[in-house]
């Protein structure tokens, strides 16, 4: 249920079904774009069994990669126990530490890489 790979849309044909030529690292296939009406030529999209399922947000992709690159960079060795506890102690407190709150759907937020909530 999972093998979906990113490809670049090179050409779109509107018709009975919206189809596009999508280039996956040099391999080109005709893909159904009916489910991604917002995708235009030049966009990247994720394709599963010949169907584009989502546009790839390139800005987000690059930001994510950037954050990954920065991980683990400063620490050369595994931190000792004290450091781990200190880090845990100084971390962002939970909005509802005892788990008794009833969040609404809007309360479900994305969190950034440090675990801090960001608004949608």
């Amino acid at each position, binding site marked *: *249920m*999972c*093998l979906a*790979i990113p490809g670049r849309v090179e050409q779109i044909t509107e018709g009975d079904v919206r189809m596009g030529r999508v280039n*996956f*690292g*040099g*391999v*080109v*296939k005709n893909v159904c774009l009916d489910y991604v009406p917002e995708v235009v030529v030049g966009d990247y999209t994720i394709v*599963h*069994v010949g169907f584009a399922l989502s546009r790839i947000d390139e800005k987000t992709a690059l930001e994510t990669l950037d954050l990954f690159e920065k991980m683990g960079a400063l620490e050369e060795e595994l931190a000792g126990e004290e450091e781990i506890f200190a880090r845990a102690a100084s971390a962002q407190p939970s909005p509802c530490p005892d788990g008794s709150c009833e969040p609404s759907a809007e309360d479900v937020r994305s969190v950034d890489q440090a675990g801090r909530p960001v608004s949608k």
Partner: protein
Amino acid sequence: MADGSSTPDFSNWSCPLPLADYPTIVMGHGGGGKLGNELVEHLFLPAFRNPALENLGDAAVFELNSGRLAMSTDSFVVQPLFFPGGSIGALAINGTVNDLAVSGAEPKFLSASFILEEGFPLSQLAAIVRAMADAAATAGVRIVTGDTKVVERGHGDGCYINTAGVGVLRPGVNVGPHRAQAGDAILVSGTIGDHGMAIMSVREGLEFESQIRSDCAALNGLIADVLDAVGTGVHAMRDPTRGGLASTLNEIAASSKVGMEIDEARLPIRTEVQSACELLGLDPVYVANEGKAVFFVAAESVDQALAALRAHPLGADAARIGHVTAQHPGMIVARTGMGANRVIAPQIGEQLPRIC
């Protein structure tokens, strides 16, 4: 034409009329009578022209230097018959040439037998024969005897070919699948997965557009260069055809009772081949090759072997991919791009495309 065939020029055939009346294969072509003879006279002979063949005896008669001989046979049933970078004809010659070459022999003479389906277009047969002639000329071998049979429509896939070949073993060379030793380096002559993905690209239900071409090629020249450079430094060689690099490594590991360690980052793979594998969920190490060789070389001979490979046009992308170890005999362990390990297991049946 899209199927690789071209219409033969019947005008200079000495009996053009009867052949031109039969643009497709009929049962009579396999019967040994007039129709069959015409195929030989006007198609096979002109293409494969050499003295041993032209006697048209029941057997080819030729001389070989004394010494040890090697013989190999293979049948070719690929579909489609023509694919990017090659055809069943090229495969039929190069496949047998390569089996002899990786045994340490210089290939000399081949037989070629055809099983044709009634209704098979002569123009396609002519194109296949032309490809065989070209491949034989490039490899420096001669097709000295052959046979044609025809089966009823519906009982064959158009064209099956069997080739058998004889070669002379190079003196002093002693290679075999049981001879890989701990400490040997594992070299591959170039990029893997090209042939299998070229076939996939034109396979019904899975086709895709790409520049991927089969690597189908005769390896005897390349292998001769390596043997010239390091001689007995080569312990084992094989061409990783069906089942890909993975199958070859596992077969030799089992024969030689050794383990192997591979560095995945060093496997030479064309970007497009990798992309096509991602698309279909295939692992390149299990994908067929038709113009590559794997060498198990004594550690002290690696540099010369690599230099010899890279100096040859077919070996430009040659790489050292791992080594043989006494640990975990029979098991191939690969270091992944993550720096973790995984086993390259023997393949069970044909690798199938997947969606999950």
